[in-house]
């Protein structure tokens, strides 16, 4: 403590500069954590978070006894795994292709176009989904009708939404992720490429034995970051693509959409607090564990 006071005296100005951010983070990130106790309480607005009665693990019992807890956990994990694999794989293929392209203008324009979806809000992506998949006026049904086939009511077939969500997730993020991989590839020492071509490596061999091994650290970091978020669904994406179509909930409900609905639409604070608590705590345990394991295997790959 004495050392801290001494440091404050020495670097008074630096502490003054740091203070706003520290206060901000305490108010907007650390203090809200205390609200996690709501998971064990029967919340009443008039009594507030701390005045409400405790009810033990009742909220959790309700959440899991109804089967909802398991369903939303399973959905969240399955969606995140699928999205991780597809968007990273696509990003790597895009990055390798773009870096191999020699025509500068083509390279620049195509890179700009695949990055564009990142800039669009999910509300607008939601409009796209509507314009493409709706029953009466959707682009796909329009094409089906033109080909003399019967239109499909996509909103009545929960099974296809897994793929629609996966496709739009890849659509939105592949360009963004590919930039990370392009940076990794362009960071590779040019001498290695020269050596490979002197040794007579074909383009495929060069990619297989030089480019791909060089982006492995980046890929591992991306996987780690995503594993740490495996229980967090991208609320904005699910909410905008699926919306309030109750028929699709079993197939598309993730923890975040469930928490949101229970909180704001059915006002079931206890259950949503239980789900949110379970998500926050488990996420934290997963990321710390995975990072610890990675640290043991190879220190360089650890996140923190």
């Amino acid at each position: 403590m004495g050392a801290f006071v001494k440091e404050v005296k020495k670097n008074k100005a630096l502490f003054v500069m740091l203070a706003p951010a520290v206060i901000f983070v305490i108010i907007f990130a650390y203090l809200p954590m205390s609200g996690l106790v709501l998971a064990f309480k029967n919340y009443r607005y008039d009594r507030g978070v701390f005045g409400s009665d405790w009810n033990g693990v009742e909220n959790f019992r309700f959440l899991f006894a109804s089967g909802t807890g398991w369903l939303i956990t399973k959905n969240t994990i399955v969606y995140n795994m699928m999205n991780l694999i597809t968007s990273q794989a696509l990003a790597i293929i895009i990055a390798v292709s773009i870096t191999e392209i020699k025509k500068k203008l083509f390279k620049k324009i195509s890179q700009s176009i695949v990055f564009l979806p990142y800039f669009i809000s999910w509300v607008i992506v939601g409009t796209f989904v509507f314009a493409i998949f709706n029953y009466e006026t959707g682009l796909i049904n329009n094409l089906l009708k033109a080909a003399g086939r019967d239109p499909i009511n996509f909103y009545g077939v929960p099974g296809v939404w897994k793929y629609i969500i996966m496709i739009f997730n890849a659509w939105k993020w592949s360009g963004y992720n590919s930039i990370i991989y392009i940076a990794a590839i362009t960071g590779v020492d040019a001498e290695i490429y020269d050596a490979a071509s002197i040794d007579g490596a074909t383009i495929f061999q060069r990619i297989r034995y030089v480019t791909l091994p060089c982006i492995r650290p980046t890929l591992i970091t991306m996987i780690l970051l995503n594993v740490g978020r495996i229980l967090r669904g991208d609320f904005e994406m699910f909410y905008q693509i699926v919306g309030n179509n109750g028929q699709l909930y079993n197939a598309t409900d993730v923890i975040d959409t469930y928490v949101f609905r229970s909180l704001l639409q059915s006002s079931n604070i206890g259950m949503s607090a239980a789900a949110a608590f379970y998500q926050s705590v488990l996420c934290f345990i997963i990321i710390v564990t995975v990072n610890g394991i990675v640290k043991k295997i190879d220190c360089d790959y650890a996140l923190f």
Partner: protein
Amino acid sequence: MKMITTGSETKIKLSFSSRLFYVICYTFITLMALICLIPFIVLISGSFTSENYIRFHGYSVLIHDFSTKAYGLIFKNPVMVLKAYGVSVGITLVGTFLGLILTTVTAYVLSRKDFKYRNVFSFFFYFTTLFNGGMVSTYIYYIQYLHLKDSIWALIFPGLFNVFYLLIMRSFVQALPYALVESAKIDGAGEFVILFRIILPLLKSGMATIGLFLALGYWNDWYNAMLYINTSDKYPLQYMLYNLLQQSQAIARIASQSGIVMADIPSNSLKMAMTVVATGPIILVYPFVQKYFVKGVTVGSVKG
């Protein structure tokens, strides 16, 4: 003699395999670019197609039966759109400005090598990305303890300070030669003079990058408005758009179920036109600001 033959043979083989590779490469990237563009094209075409055509033939890639009726309707009564634009511009400007100052100053302090507790404070900030209170705690805390329900600040605070941007900014500061600070100190400059007169002018590109990330986040935000804003006068653009889409979808659903013909509302083309109006600014500035985002993503991907 033999050696030359082998040499030329490998050369022909190599050029064939690379030609094949380039054909695949260019085709793939062109295809990806098209997939990224098609939704935008459907959107724009839909906004310029007459309501009658959409009702019978659906949305399509090309413009059929050109009409500007949907835009006419928006601009005939522009109050709602202008208000929402005003709110979005306002929160984007204020949020970006405050967030940028907070991020830059904090990043500067955390990169000062003579600041003994920089790692402690870095972890203090980083921890909030590993563990947080979740949606329920945050929501109740904002409403009951910070009294932010229906306040415009509820749209500004949540995005103001992002630890990921802090880390990117810190990388930008660390790229500056540290001797700058030391020599200024020897010359007797105070801490604030060093920061504002010496460091900030050199951080223009870093500040442009983070400022644009912040601005994009504010411009595309609808989620916080959905949680906290009740008065439609305070709706930002994206949330107003979302509401409009929901309402007209709801109207269309009711109409189709009860057999009412909604002849007079060009709801299908109106949806697309509104989306174009909301996306327009981003598409217009995109070519000019893209490079900063590429830079930010690249810097952010280098682990620091």
